[in-house]
């Protein structure tokens, strides 16, 4: 298989795509938003439970390509237990990475498991797939109902 191809579709990504974590509707949540990526028809609903500034629970449902689905799945596993501010910081680092603007090794380390998405930076068309869940999470937290990435 093509090397670059394997860089985009890393094993972790394929795994989360096949077996998405937290793929359900929360019965107890206080934030919600719908995200669309009209380019590929991706649609993701994000459910969040925040208590005393801590993300107690987060889940998603919807359909999309491997990149957007696995990104949503990984996001939910990472955000649980974080504060809103921490979440914001992680998304910022993540966004910097997938748009190819990251230049310090250190921040890549900070990104931990999310580093599997670094191949995305070579695929401008896929940046929106990788960031859709995060944008939607942000919208949910800000109590905006829908978000579109284009």
């Amino acid at each position, binding site marked *: *298989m*093509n090397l*670059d*191809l*394997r860089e*985009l*579709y890393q094993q972790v990504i*394929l795994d989360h795509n*096949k077996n998405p974590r937290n793929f359900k509707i929360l019965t107890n949540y206080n934030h919600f938003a719908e995200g669309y990526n009209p*380019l*590929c*028809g*991706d*649609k993701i609903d994000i459910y969040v439970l925040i208590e005393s500034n801590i993300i107690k629970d987060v889940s998603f449902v919807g*359909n*999309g*390509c*491997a*990149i957007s*689905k696995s990104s949503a799945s990984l996001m939910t596993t990472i955000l649980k237990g974080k504060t809103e501010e921490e979440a914001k910081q992680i998304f910022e680092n993540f966004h910097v990475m997938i748009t190819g603007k990251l230049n310090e090794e250190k921040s890549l380390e900070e990104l931990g498991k999310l580093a599997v998405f670094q191949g995305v930076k070579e*695929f401008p*068309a*896929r940046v929106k*797939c990788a960031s859709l869940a995060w944008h939607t999470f942000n919208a949910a937290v800000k109590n905006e109902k829908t978000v579109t990435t284009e």
Partner: protein
Amino acid sequence: MAIEIDNNEKKNRTFDIDKIRNDFPILKQLINGKPLVYFDNAATTQKPLSVINKIESYYKEINSNIHRGVHTLSQRATVEYEATREKVMRFINAENLSEIIFTKGTTDSINLVASSFGKKFVKEGDEIIVSQMEHHSNIVPWQMLCEEKNAHLKVIPINDSGELIIEEYEKLITEKTKLVSIVYVSNSLGTINPVKEIIKIAHSKNVPVLIDAAQAIQHFKIDVKELDCDFLCFSGHKVYGPTGIGVLYGKQALLESMPPYQGGGDMIRSVSFSKTVYNSLPAKFEAGTPNIEAGIALGTAFDYINSIGIENIFDYETDLFNYANEKILAIDKLIPIGTAKNKSGTISFILDGVHPHDIGTILDFDGVAIRTGHHCTQPVMERFNLPATARISFGLYNTKEEVDIAIKSIKKVFEVFI
């Protein structure tokens, strides 16, 4: 006047695929180090060198605004621009030049009709009929019209193969029906609709019919007199011409009965604040400086097609399509979307467990350009309960070898996703 070659002679000309591929400079591009395999022709076609050269020589030699100039350049540009109108007229066998309106593209053509025909003929409670397989550009203008006029949009359903259910269509036509607007060839399913029959049925109840020929004009011979359609639209960029130019054909009497669409220069005979007199056809519907460059180059695109012969293109593409259809449908775990008996130009499919967007990315690695998404036909996606499909669509320069490359690449998708 063009010399008429009889059909037999046309048929006998050989279809020299190597020469044809040589006519399209972009086919020599490498994508990710691989030769470009361009299978996104339903979105837009590539341009032959003659079209590209025409644009270049237009700007280097005669560029000028048209219709109102006495100087040499303006006259030359006017003559060339109007020559395209004649070429289009002949190509679709229209009755006269008044019936050929230049627009920005198919979308613009349909909006023109929705607005102008709508203003004149559509009243509260009236009905417009479209089908479930229309491109958004043949849905939204009618929705907007119906909302404005309190009229109703009726939809011909499609069956599981992606064919129109004609019996349902017949039931939909009533005395309230003001227009039937139907796609000739579906851009997401490939279905060729029986438009001649559809038109006959509509005419038997005195209802005019618009044919969206955006995916037909480049693949086979269209004769508006034989079809007896009332309107017909297509885009230049899908028939080997430039972007920004399209055609609306309309029967003269109908066009004459309709009010102008946009206001501006050229579409008026005289303007004063007390009384403005509109121009005659086709100028009445062509306000402002037209896309001169693209208009002229569209003529060159038709010259190119004529030099090969649309019948020869049809024969070659039919053979290619059959080859591709058989081989692609034989791929394990591949589900074709749109399995009508009569198809042209397009093969849509999904792969079990893989999102079309990922298919598109993986094929692009191998230089194979396909389109993935809803193809601006969301009601079709809804009908088949899908978010998107992957679509391979053909042009006259595609080959069986290219089909084989695409198939190899599709198989690679499974390697990644297993």
